[in-house]
């Protein structure tokens, strides 16, 4: 099935699934409440904060090559090996080499979207390496053989009862639908994993250039355990994640926490500068950083798209999007869903199969209005539509049709005549148009807007 038809099929199914929509609505309204409270409680001026953040990110993009080199130089001085991956295949190759070198059989992983991007779990499976997701939401989707539903809350679509059943079947846990008990089941299940794994794999939320550090944000502590217990730590990070220096975190950490989960600050924000150093009492013996390009530098070269590289993957645009809320995360069939996914996926993976995502938008701009780094996401969706249009060989009929439409619209008299004709034709056709269960086709009002306006003007 083509990506387009699978998108249409899934969205038709899910937009009519009341149970599914209720679950998503409940999760997002809880999120909305918390975000509103924290935004006004924490920031003097949210607009000002996001403008400052956008400016810092623009500075970063202006100096990206030198900042990346600075990062590499600093962090490798503490014994970290930095590997540059052009694409998914190269990142995969690096990881397999590392795993072979250290004879790794078992990997524990904390939540990371870049690993989704390079299909890390499939890679491990093909190479006979066991991989265990340690983030609770990720563990749930892994046990269910699914992909993350949302870039921040991967198991948003699962109810307590569904998770209870899943744990019962896959982990042999006693029956329960209590969130606390379910969390404790996951805790017990994973505890030994940290100390028996050969490699800990993480992503990172930020790369800090001046101090040569990675920053990882999380609430559960699974990330910290993943970076502390196994003898090897591998971090896979997108090259756009850079911040100039540590002190920039005092804006970006509260910003990400506010937009991501409606928290003042996420539970744990860890700054990693290397493996265990002399004089330290524990930590991994060796650390690798894989810097992932995978389409980012190509996007960088397009001036109009560069601003999307400011994205800090907070997920706010997904939650705000009426399309995401209706069709759900899996429908997108990509690691990045919602508006951010609809901008970058056609760019990363090609217009041929993915341009439909740019059209899966009402262009309401809700995404742009919530974005903490002030990206005009909806305008980039339009850019994608434009590019898709340039690339596609649209039919002659369509082109003539559009020309005719433009001609009609540009003259008052033509418009009057044609809209009146349109009204009559529509009336005539109405009995034949299907009245399906989910869509009612409205009747045409007796007076057109133009007529009503005329009357209104006369009465004034």
């Amino acid at each position, binding site marked *: 099935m083509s990506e387009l038809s699978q998108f249409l099929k899934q969205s038709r199914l899910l937009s009519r699934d009341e149970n599914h929509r209720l*679950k998503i609505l409940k*999760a997002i309204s809880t*999120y909305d409440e918390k975000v509103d409270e924290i935004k*006004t409680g*924490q*920031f*003097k001026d949210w607009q000002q904060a996001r403008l*400052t953040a956008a*400016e810092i990110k623009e*500075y*970063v993009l*202006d*100096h*990206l*090559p030198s900042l*990346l080199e600075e990062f590499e130089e600093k962090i490798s001085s*503490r014994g970290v090996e930095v590997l*540059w*991956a052009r694409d998914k295949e190269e990142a995969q190759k690096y990881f397999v080499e590392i795993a072979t070198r250290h004879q790794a059989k078992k990997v524990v992983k904390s939540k990371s979207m870049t690993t989704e991007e390079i299909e890390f779990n499939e890679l491990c499976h093909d190479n006979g390496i066991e991989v265990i997701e340690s*983030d*609770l*939401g990720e563990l749930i989707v892994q046990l269910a053989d699914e992909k993350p539903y949302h870039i921040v*809350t*991967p198991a948003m679509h*699962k109810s*307590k009862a569904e998770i209870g059943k899943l744990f019962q079947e896959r982990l042999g846990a006693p029956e329960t639908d209590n*969130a606390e008990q*379910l*969390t*404790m089941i*996951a805790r017990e299940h994973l505890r*030994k994993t940290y*100390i028996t794994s050969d490699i800990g794999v993480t992503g990172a939320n930020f790369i800090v250039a001046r*101090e040569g550090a990675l920053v990882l944000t999380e*609430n*559960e*502590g699974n990330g*910290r*355990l993943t970076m502390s*217990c196994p003898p090897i730590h591998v971090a896979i990070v997108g090259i756009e994640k850079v911040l100039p*220096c540590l002190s920039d*975190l*005092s*804006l970006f950490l509260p910003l990400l926490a506010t937009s991501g*989960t409606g928290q003042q*600050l996420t539970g*744990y*924000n*860890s*700054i*990693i*500068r290397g*493996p265990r*150093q002399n*004089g*330290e*009492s524990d*930590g991994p013996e060796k650390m690798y950083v894989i810097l992932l390009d995978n389409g980012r*530098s190509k996007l960088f070269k397009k*001036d109009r798209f560069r601003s999307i590289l400011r994205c800090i993957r907070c997920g706010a645009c997904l939650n705000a999007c009426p399309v995401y809320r209706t069709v759900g995360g899996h429908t997108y069939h990509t690691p990045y869903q919602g508006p951010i996914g609809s901008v970058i996926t056609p760019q990363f993976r090609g217009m041929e199969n993915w341009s439909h995502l740019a059209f899966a938008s009402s262009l309401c701009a809700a995404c742009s209005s919530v974005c903490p780094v002030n990206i005009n996401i909806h305008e980039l969706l339009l850019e994608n539509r434009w590019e898709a249009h340039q690339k596609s060989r649209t039919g002659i009929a369509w082109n003539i049709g559009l020309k005719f439409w433009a001609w009609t619209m540009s003259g008052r008299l033509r418009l009057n005549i044609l809209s009146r004709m349109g009204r009559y034709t529509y009336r005539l056709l109405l009995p034949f148009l299907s009245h399906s269960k989910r869509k009612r086709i409205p009747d045409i009002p007796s007076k057109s807007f133009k007529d009503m306006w005329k009357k209104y003007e006369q009465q004034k």
Partner: protein
Amino acid sequence: MNSKNEILSRLRQRGSPAREDNAPQWEDKDLFADFPGPSDNLIDIFSHQLNKLSGDFHLVNNKEEMVKTLKSLLEDSEPEQCKAHKSPLIDELKMLGPEIRDYLTFIDGDEISSEEFERLEVGITGADCLIARTGSILLHTVSAGGRRLSVLPPTHIVIAEEKQIVPSLDEAFNTLDHDQDIWSYATIITGPSRTSDIEKQLVLGAHGPKKLIVLIIKS
């Protein structure tokens, strides 16, 4: 061309020229509505924030009182299940309170197997600084006995002094900047481990500590 050069050269070919030569600067006090004012008591703000996050807070007047408080906190655990980070303050507490000495044995990662470590109940560490505005604790591998002691045991006790409390994050990062080269890992802890992955319901103790207790001696 190797991958690094290829990526970097792509990043160097760009249409529009770079604009700013300096990254924008700001201070936390201009940005945050809840930045502590000059008349605010940082201890009060810190304890209020920590309590909101379900952390426990104890303020003591002197080291003798600290020993008493620690004793009451540790009473229910076995001494073998508690480990502490080696620091001058903890050394002093051991001198003052022989009754808690056994609970405060120092840890060195190499002397203890991972399995034993995993069975510990309580980890006791110092901190680099405490952040009033967010109720957070900043610590790193040198100030807090490595990476695992503050995350693997189900209870994490932090011992600090009043003078270590700073108003907001920017100052916390400044203290970190000073000791540039010794640590490999730092973390800002804001409340006990938590998750809302199941139907957005908050549950404490997801993988890290279920309990976070902060003890502060008045300066």
